[in-house]
C-alpha cells in the first residue's frame, strides 16, 4: 500500500514538474549541441561518489549484503577524471570494509587522479574503508563517525604453513604502506593501532572516533558536508589558478 501511495504522489509531482523539466532539458540539449559545457553551479561542477556497505570485488556477495561494486566505481572514476565538465570529486564513505584488492584498487585510482578530491567519512569507515578515506587530496570525518583498524584475516580453509602467515603479513603491509603514504600517520603508529589489544571485544585492533582519527593524523579534519564542499571548491579554485598560470607560462615561453 505504501509503495502505491508513493507512486501516486511521485506521479503528481512529476506531472507538475514536467513543463519546467522539459524546458530545462531543451536548454541542456542546446548547450550540448553548441558544444558548451553542461549546466554548472556558480562554484563549479562536482560529482559525488557514495561508498556504502561492503566493497565488492572478485566475488559477487550474497544479496543480503549492500555493496559498492568495483566495476561500477572504476569506470566512473575514469569518466570523472576525463570529463571536461567535472571539476572535482566528493567521496562519501560509510562502509564496513570488503575485498582488499578492490578497495585498494579504488583507493589507488582516487589517489592518482589529477582532479581535486575530498572525502567525508560518515557513520563508519572501517577496515578497507580506511585507505579509501585517506586516498583523496583532503579528508574529513564527522565527529560521531568511527574507523576500525584491525589486522587482515581469513576465515575458511587455509594451509597451515608458515608461508600462509607471511602471505598475510604482506597483504597487510599493502594497506599499511598505502595509508602511511597518503596520510600523516606513520606506518609504525598505524601498525600499532592495528595490533592493539584491549579495545575491541573479541578482536585485535582499535576503534578511532572522529577526533582521534584527526589526532593520529589519519584524517585531516573533523567536519561535515559544508566543510567538505567548501574545501573541495577551494581546491578547485586553486587548481584553476594553477592551470591558468601554466597557460600563461607556455605563452610567455613562445
Amino acid at each position, binding site marked *: 500500500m505504501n509503495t502505491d501511495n*508513493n507512486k501516486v504522489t511521485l506521479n503528481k509531482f512529476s506531472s507538475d514538474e514536467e513543463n519546467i523539466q522539459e524546458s530545462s532539458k531543451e536548454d541542456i540539449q542546446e548547450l550540448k549541441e553548441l558544444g558548451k559545457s553542461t549546466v554548472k553551479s556558480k562554484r563549479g561542477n562536482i*560529482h559525488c561518489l557514495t561508498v556504502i556497505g561492503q566493497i565488492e570485488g572478485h566475488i559477487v556477495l550474497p*544479496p543480503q549484503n549492500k555493496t559498492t561494486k568495483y566495476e561500477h566505481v572504476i569506470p566512473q572514476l575514469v569518466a570523472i577524471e576525463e570529463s571536461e565538465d567535472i571539476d572535482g570529486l566528493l567521496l562519501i564513505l560509510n562502509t564496513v570494509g570488503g575485498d582488499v584488492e578492490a578497495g585498494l584498487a579504488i583507493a589507488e585510482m582516487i589517489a592518482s587522479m589529477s582532479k581535486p578530491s575530498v572525502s567525508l567519512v560518515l557513520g563508519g569507515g572501517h577496515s578497507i574503508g580506511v585507505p579509501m578515506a585517506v586516498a583523496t587530496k583532503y579528508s574529513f570525518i564527522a565527529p560521531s563517525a568511527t574507523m576500525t583498524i584491525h589486522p*587482515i584475516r581469513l*576465515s575458511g580453509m587455509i594451509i597451515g604453513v608458515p608461508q600462509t602467515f607471511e602471505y598475510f603479513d604482506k597483504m597487510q603491509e599493502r594497506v599499511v604502506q598505502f595509508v602511511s603514504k597518503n596520510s600523516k600517520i606513520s606506518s609504525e603508529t598505524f601498525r600499532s593501532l592495528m595490533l592493539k589489544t584491549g579495545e575491541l571485544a573479541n578482536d585485535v585492533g582499535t576503534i578511532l572516533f572522529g577526533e582521534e582519527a584527526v589526532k593520529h593524523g589519519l584524517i585531516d579534519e573533523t567536519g561535515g558536508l559544508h566543510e567538505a564542499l567548501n574545501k573541495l571548491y577551494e581546491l578547485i579554485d586553486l587548481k584553476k589558478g594553477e592551470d591558468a598560470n601554466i597557460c600563461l607560462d607556455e605563452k610567455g615561453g613562445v
Partner: protein
Amino acid sequence: MILYSIIPADVVFGNYFGKNADEYSLKEILYEGEKVEVIPMSNNTYKVNRIISTEPKAYLNPKLMPGSVIESLK
C-alpha cells in the same frame, strides 16, 4: 579473496546458496541517461531501487527516485 571487514565472514557469506537469493533479483538498466538498479515487477515494469551514478543532479530527477515505477524500457 581476502575480506577485510568488520562484518564476520559467516554473516557476509551466510545463506549464499539459500533460497533467499531469488527474492532479491535486481537488474541494472540505463534509464534517463543514468545507470539505475531496479526490481523487476509484473507486466514488464520496474521499480527503482537505487541510482548508480556520481551525477548529483540524477538524484533530483523524480523519475529516478527510489520507489518510482518505470513503465516500460524504451
